[in-house]
């Protein structure tokens, strides 16, 4: 089974529904040590992604690139740009595989996303950011079964595993006592979106 533009569009539709439900919850998580905008920013980004015709894209690469561009136009926030970076990574992977990306490739693709996000954001695994979610998801998908439920479980596990660690990046690093014991808003967003996708699948 090869990933199609329609699959990507379905994923975006799910994310759209999830983020609309979780917007305030994610804002509240960010307000703990950040500026309280993670939910609203992601909502704007996913709204913009949902507006373009992803299902009708000529190729998987075009579908993913369209999403990256929509994200990049909508926001200048860190996480928004990292979302765009991840989408662009998928586009690149699709291009070099000539569109032939299957479920079995997803572990590798998510690992590439993790590395691209780390390079863009100059953060590392262990810093308690979306990088750690991507890292856990990549490993779980490699082990299999390579499906959304596996990804969702890995994201949830990563959230639990990092909750009691301090954040080591950006503004939050200055308040280890406040980030320890609280969810990182970016990691939380990934977990909520994937959980929603699984539940409604």
């Amino acid at each position: 089974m090869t990933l199609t533009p329609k699959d990507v569009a379905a994923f975006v539709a799910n994310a759209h529904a999830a983020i609309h439900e979780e917007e305030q919850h994610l804002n509240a998580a960010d307000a703990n040590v950040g500026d309280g905008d993670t939910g609203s920013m992601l909502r704007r980004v996913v709204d913009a992604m949902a507006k373009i015709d992803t299902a009708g894209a000529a190729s998987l690469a075009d579908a993913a690139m369209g999403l990256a561009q929509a994200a990049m136009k909508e926001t200048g926030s860190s996480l928004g740009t990292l979302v765009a970076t991840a989408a662009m990574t998928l586009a690149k992977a699709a291009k070099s595989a000539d569109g032939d990306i299957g479920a079995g490739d997803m572990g590798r693709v998510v690992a590439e996303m993790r590395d691209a996000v780390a390079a863009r954001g100059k953060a590392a695994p262990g810093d308690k950011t979306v990088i750690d979610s991507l890292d856990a998801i990549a490993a779980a998908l490699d082990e299999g079964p390579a499906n959304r439920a596996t990804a969702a479980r890995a994201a949830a596990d990563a959230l639990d595993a990092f909750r009691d660690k301090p954040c080591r990046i950006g503004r939050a690093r200055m308040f280890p006592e406040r980030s320890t014991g609280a969810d990182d808003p970016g990691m939380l967003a990934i977990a909520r979106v994937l959980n929603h996708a699984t539940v409604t699948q």
Partner: protein
Amino acid sequence: MKKLLNDPANYVAELLEGLVSAHPELSLGGESGRCVSRTDPAADGKVGIATGGGSGHLPLFTGYVGDGLLDSCAIGNIFEGPSVQASLDAIRAANRGAGVLCLYGNYGGDRMNFDMAGEMAHMDDITTRTVLGTDDVASAAPEEAEKRRGVAGIVLLYKVAGAAAAEGRDLDAVAAVTEKAAAATRSIGVALSPCRVPTAQAPNFEIADTEMEMGMGIHGEPGIWRAELQSADAVADEMLDRLLAELDPPKSSRVVPLVNGLGATPLEELFILWRRIGARLCDAGLKPVSPLIGNFVTSMEMSGASLSLMVLDEELESLMSAPARCPFWRVGL
């Protein structure tokens, strides 16, 4: 923190419309619609200077686009970095064939977006270099100086970079002297009261009616200490002491001081601060050159002030005093 606005979602678009209508020397454009550049672009072959940042800091960032200063500015939402598209637009608008220096404050989102835009610009054969404003001594220890955020000191870097480019230096030389200027510049801020972002219901931080916070950033980032409001002279002394401890300028150095208001602090009180700072600089055997006192980098209606110092050498002094003109600042013209 009441606001004169229409739909908060249109705040940035409307202020930009008003800005370019009042200042025909600035034009708004780019694919993002969020790039301000000079209506009369610089001559071919001049190194371009592009900047960018969130809205809510006027005259920063876009107000410094002009002769002998910036060529373009990418504009973000309030307190949010510019998008990659806007950053790319700004790089393209600044490019006159000799490469573009991207000069902006050290914030995660801004850096990622300009980096990404820079990579895209390379595909258009535009060479870019980056210098970051990292002047805020309160945002990280000296050992981690590269993690420091950029605040009001960036205005002084604009002046140096813009003058070096106007002189006809090449991209490497412009970047090098701007790096030197950045290394010679430090800032620290003090906040008395918060502001409110138009789309938010609440102020961006809370502080008691009798308190101040030393070292707070221009988005309300936490500072070094929070305590009872002190006298202007005590505040001036602490800001100056912290900057001098870091800069450690050689006896009888010439320095450019910038006493900046964050928004709601009356000019009167900036002059009261300056009175002390100027006297203290002279007592320390330093020579203040062309002090800048006013609202150069704000945080909407936040009240408070910041002090920046740039220690001059001959080259920096000549670049700082070269003619320049933009809507909110003029030098020698």
